[in-house]
């Protein structure tokens, strides 16, 4: 009697197609992605109906947190290097190569120029602590923000100004920044908001 052999089916699945899909998606994400900028503080922007998008490049950002500390940053590592060097010249502070390199990697920085050097020497873990970020002074007696904006304009004349402030930031701080910009004849700028109804990230 012949034995009927049931052929065993292989459990092998062809992975080639799945691999194709995975890498297709990967390519898509790699090409469309722009990385989340690391911000020293969490800021909840107010909502608005405006649907204008902020450009990705040529932006100088002023971040104002809840307590009214001002942070400043521009995009592009080369630009940042020039910016810090220019600020060093203005305030007669010599920054080492190491410090400049650290600065180019920071998106936003909120420290008076006097303590910038020691701030840049800090370890990355402690750099974001609130006590290490005093905010850029923008008072009438000591307005360093004005110098930052001026220097940034020279480094990259095409920069657009974006102000990103927290919902509960008291108005006087925002007014201080606006006044600073007004003295520089920078009358057009963008306020960063989020879309109405969208939950905060």
């Amino acid at each position, binding site marked *: 009697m012949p034995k009927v052999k049931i052929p065993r089916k*292989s*459990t*092998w699945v062809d*992975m*080639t197609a*799945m*691999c194709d899909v*995975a*890498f297709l*998606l*990967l390519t898509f*994400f*790699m090409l*469309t*992605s*722009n*990385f*989340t900028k690391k911000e020293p503080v969490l800021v909840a*922007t*107010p*909502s*608005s*109906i*405006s*649907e*204008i*998008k*902020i450009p*990705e490049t040529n932006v100088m950002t002023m971040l*104002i947190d809840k307590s009214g500390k001002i942070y400043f940053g521009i995009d592009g590592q080369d630009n940042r290097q020039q910016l810090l060097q220019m600020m060093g010249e203005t305030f007669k502070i010599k920054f080492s190569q190491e410090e400049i390199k650290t600065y180019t990697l920071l998106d936003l920085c909120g420290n008076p120029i006097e303590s910038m050097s020691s701030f840049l020497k800090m370890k990355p873990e402690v750099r974001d602590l609130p006590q290490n970020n005093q905010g850029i002074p923008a008072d009438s007696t000591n307005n360093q923000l004005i110098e930052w904006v001026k220097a940034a304009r020279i480094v990259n004349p095409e920069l657009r100004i*974006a102000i*990103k*402030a*927290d*919902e*509960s*930031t*008291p*108005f*006087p701080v*925002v*007014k201080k920044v*606006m006044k600073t*910009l*007004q*003295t520089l*004849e920078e*009358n*057009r*700028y*963008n*306020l*960063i*908001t*989020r*879309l109405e109804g*969208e939950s905060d*990230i």
Partner: protein
Amino acid sequence: MAEISQDQGSHKKGKGKKRSKKLSTRIDLTPMVDLGFLLITFFMLATTLIKPQTMEITMPSNKDVTEDNQTVAKASQAVTLILGGKDKVFYYFGKTEGAQLTATDYSAGGLRKLLLQKNFSIIKQVEDLKSEKTKTRMKDEVYKSQLSKIKSGKNAPVVRIMATDKASYKNLVDALDEMNICYISRYAIVDIDAADQALIAGKDI
């Protein structure tokens, strides 16, 4: 995962003829898929797909503002908003002298209703233009130029936004947002001057 090679059992039949073993050209792609998805996960988490929205504002210039080139708004068109603390907003129409402050809030029934009433004729024109646009397939440029013409029309209200020190940034953005919603193009963020200071003095603003 084990692979079943295709030439399995072939050596049984062989009659002394030595055949070189055929190696399968199949490669197990599972680890590669794993890697692919790992990287996808990373990129998905590290990216921002939603770009933040912005609101463009133009502030008045500091220089060259003399009495001659200052535009004087008609008292009937003027609206002054004073942003106070506790999410309250105060408004009055016309001149500062003898004005009566009224309190309202940022909700749809508050400030927006007020501005829509004030800007009624303009909004009607804008809506007419919009319906005409959909009917006649108007070009975008034409539409935009017509829209701005309507918005800066003679009877359009002029809004002054003043913020007290107690107001928050959110209040300012809300107020600016209402301007956009109500098609008001003539507005400015101004400092509180002495006359208005006197008006709000002694009140809980």
